[in-house]
């Protein structure tokens, strides 16, 4: 019957998984069912901000982490430890550029829905020590990967989810690279991968609790169960 053929053909088209529409981020940033609460100054916390809710909240969460990472690598390059090799300089300069790409992308894509610029606080990191800087870089990259992996399911818009996916694998490449620089062969370890070979993932609350220790501007996610 023609009907059967059409049905079968439809399921084939479905199966091919092709052509998932890629609509401009700005074009679809609002008017969705899960319409988002705009991020706002968290007055109760004094000097903090809140990421908001819905997909915009998650994108602001990512934006906050990218701001933190970009600021960190900018500091690494501005005050290099004594004896930083050319390879290390190139490594950190390029990673900094990637993080700036991510930060600037979110800034433009979120526009008026975006959180403001955050003020970092790196007073706990000794930028004159190679060991300290590599250790901090490793911690930031591993945290970033766990943050994206843990928040992916909260994103409702498939295009936003894909963009998050495009970024997290680059963060994972960074993480593995820095870990290799710290300890050759330790591109992944039991501290970040479980017995099934899965990268650990973290909740927004877990990630922000750590991230906020490096931020003067405290970031809250009141709609996701975390207030700084």
């Amino acid at each position, binding site marked *: 019957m023609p009907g059967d053929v059409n049905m*079968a*053909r439809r*399921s*084939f*088209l*479905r*199966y*091919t*998984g*092709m*052509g*998932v*529409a*890629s*609509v401009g*981020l*700005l*074009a679809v940033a609002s008017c969705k069912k899960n319409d988002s609460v705009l991020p706002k100054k968290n007055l109760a916390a004094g000097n903090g901000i809140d990421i908001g809710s819905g997909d915009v909240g998650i994108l602001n969460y990512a934006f906050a982490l990218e701001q933190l990472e970009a600021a960190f690598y*900018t500091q690494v390059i501005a005050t290099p430890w004594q004896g930083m090799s050319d390879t290390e300089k190139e490594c950190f300069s390029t990673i900094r*550029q*990637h993080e*700036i*790409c*991510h930060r*600037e*992308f979110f800034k*433009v*894509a979120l526009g008026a829905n975006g959180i403001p610029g955050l003020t970092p606080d790196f007073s706990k990191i000794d930028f004159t020590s190679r060991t300290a800087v590599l250790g901090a870089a490793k911690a930031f990259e591993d945290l970033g990967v766990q943050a*994206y*992996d*843990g928040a*992916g*399911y909260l*994103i*409702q818009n*498939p295009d936003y*989810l*894909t*963009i998050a*996916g*495009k970024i*997290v*694998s*680059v963060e*994972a*490449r*960074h*993480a*593995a*690279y820095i870990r*290799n620089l710290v300890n050759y062969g330790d*591109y*992944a370890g039991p501290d970040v*991968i479980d*017995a*099934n*070979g*899965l*990268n*650990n993932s973290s909740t927004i609350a877990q990630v922000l609790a750590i991230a906020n220790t490096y931020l003067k501007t405290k970031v809250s996610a009141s709609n996701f169960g975390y207030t700084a």
Partner: protein
Amino acid sequence: MNLFNIIEEIEKVDPEFNERISPRRAAIKNITSFGSKVAVAALPFALGTMFKKAYAADTAAVSVTDVLNYALTLEYLESTFYNAGTAAKGLIPAKDASYIADITDDENHHVTFLQTVITQLGGKPVTAPPFDLTAGNGKGNGPFADVLTNYKTFLAVAETFEDTGVRAYKGQAPNLVGNQVVLTAALSIHAVEARHASAVRYLRTTSGFAEVGVWINSTTGLGNDTGISLVNGNYNGEDNVMQGGVDVSKLKDDGGKPIGQIDAAAAFDEPLSMSDVLALLVGSFIVKQ
């Protein structure tokens, strides 16, 4: 559904398939009869391109078990590859034995994990199709004929598998929107594949085989930065700098300069659809039955 008899499967459900791809079908025949290394590598990509042209955008998602079985198939390929590599005498230098063994363990764990999840969801895990690690479609003498005797070739194939694996998982994320358990697991494997990709790229460079970054440094019009032109198709589109309607290459860095092509493309890894990935692998690394 048998994932691997692509054209036959399409013809069963889509009688117009011949018309859609005609007159390109004659071109495929010519390519296969060619028998050269270039032609073997070019075939899967040519198929992928045609599929894109032959079908309009699809609107509905595939099932979760379909996605997982597809992922399982790719993990079978990777685990088969690394298990064969670690078993091959004299292939992997002693200094890298534990480095490669760790990747091998991860891939084996992914296979077991996916089989378990598929079963738990009430699905039936697919069995592994026959593979040809030389990309010779079962002949064993494909363009990577010395993959298990030459470490340089082994790492080149490893890099391609890992980078392609990252793209494949990423491409399926939209089919798992909102699924906390399965999407989170898929993203978590995706991240591990990206760690592997970085690790293998690092190894290629430290072994003196190639100077590649641990991320993909695509130039405009050429996604592939590996120096292995045979796998250009696996990197097709990695040079993209448009993200959600924003041209990232034109954004300014902190010095006020445009970010530019290389960093803008490297900062975002690109997805591949299921049909594109299968078209790249079936008929070369996955034996077309």
